[in-house]
């Protein structure tokens, strides 16, 4: 299962009670025939997520209890680090991230350490409004300045990383809420990782219920500011990866 360029790519799918959709999403990724290995991190699901994912041909990490997306992703990064993958990409199990876009998001890694699949950058019609939208605009503005590049969607979970990014994430485990996106991104930038974004189109959810309910949008704004402030005060992590090999 080696890709044409002999680069080993791990597709990490954090899944919590996504039994309805995870099988199809895994199928789609495998049917791309790009040689990606698929790792489903079953975040303490109460349904058949793990069995469905395994039947579809993914490797499954079963976390003994729910640890949140950040925790699931860290387990995935640890796996990638242990089995020496060259690049990882996070793909939602609910099918919102179009597997056909994986290659283009990975393309961003040729110029950066972290490549974000951005939902608003001129492609697709993904829209949010109200406090949640303000929070996203505000976060994008602040983090763009930090990263010295224009980022429009910093809370996107559809992101790829190379070995430097993996090492950084393993060193700094983000805070609970929004940590997997904002906190880890800010500390990665401070630690010297380069970030870029690739415009992608989002698909509607293929099933299941969204984890954010609209009423929580205002709280989302406050929490994201809080998460950002904390992230800004964190110390950089020392990345122990040989440079130049990437």
């Amino acid at each position, binding site marked *: 299962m080696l890709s044409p360029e002999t680069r080993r790519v791990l597709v990490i799918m954090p899944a919590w009670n996504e039994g309805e959709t995870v099988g199809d999403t895994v199928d789609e990724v495998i049917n791309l025939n790009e040689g990606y290995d698929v790792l489903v*991190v079953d975040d303490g699901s109460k349904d058949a997520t793990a069995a469905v994912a395994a039947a579809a041909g993914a*490797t*499954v*990490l*079963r*976390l*003994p*209890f729910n*640890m949140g997306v950040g*925790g699931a992703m*860290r*387990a995935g990064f*640890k*796996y990638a680090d*242990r089995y020496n993958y060259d690049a990882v990409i996070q793909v939602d199990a609910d099918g919102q991230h179009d597997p056909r876009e994986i290659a283009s998001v990975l393309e961003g890694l040729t110029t950066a350490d972290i490549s974000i699949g951005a939902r608003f950058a001129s492609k697709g019609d993904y829209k949010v409004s109200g406090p949640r939208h303000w929070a996203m605009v505000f976060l994008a503005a602040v983090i763009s300045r930090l990263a010295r590049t224009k980022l429009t969607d910093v809370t996107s979970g559809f992101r790829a990383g190379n070995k430097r990014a993996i090492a950084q994430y393993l060193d700094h*485990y983000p805070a609970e809420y929004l940590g997997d996106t904002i906190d880890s991104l800010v500390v990665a930038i401070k630690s010297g990782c380069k970030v870029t974004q690739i415009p992608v189109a989002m698909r509607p959810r293929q099933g299941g219920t969204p984890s954010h309910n609209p009423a929580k949008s205002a709280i989302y704004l406050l929490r994201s500011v809080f998460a950002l402030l904390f992230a800004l005060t964190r110390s950089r992590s020392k990345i122990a990866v040989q440079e130049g090999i990437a």
Partner: protein
Amino acid sequence: MGNTLAPFIFALVMVAIVLELVRRKVFREKYAALWLVIGASALVLAGWPDLLAGVSKLLGIQVASNLLFALCIVLLLGVCLHLSWELSVVEDENRTLAEEVAILRTAVEQLESDFRRIPQPTPQAAKPQLQSAPGPCED
């Protein structure tokens, strides 16, 4: 004397309980140390009630019991902070273990399924050994 005996006995019982818990290894020493310090100070204050009044006069606190309350609050705050800190450490270790267990479990399952795919290695490998084993014995 009567009004000092009750608090003194109370403090004594508390210290005794903490010591006994440490002895039975229910409590870890690092947690017990804090409680023993609290218990010892309670003993001293119960034994010498004049001490509290003297110290509060020295610190400029008009009502001696206020000093006692303030001290209690500071101590409880310290205990809470200590517990939060310990809990964070434990949670961190717990998470690392969970990740490790998940990765190991996947690796073991992978090994098991790989092993099953090998066309019956055990009977074939074991048979020659079993057949050759009686050989030397018969000689």
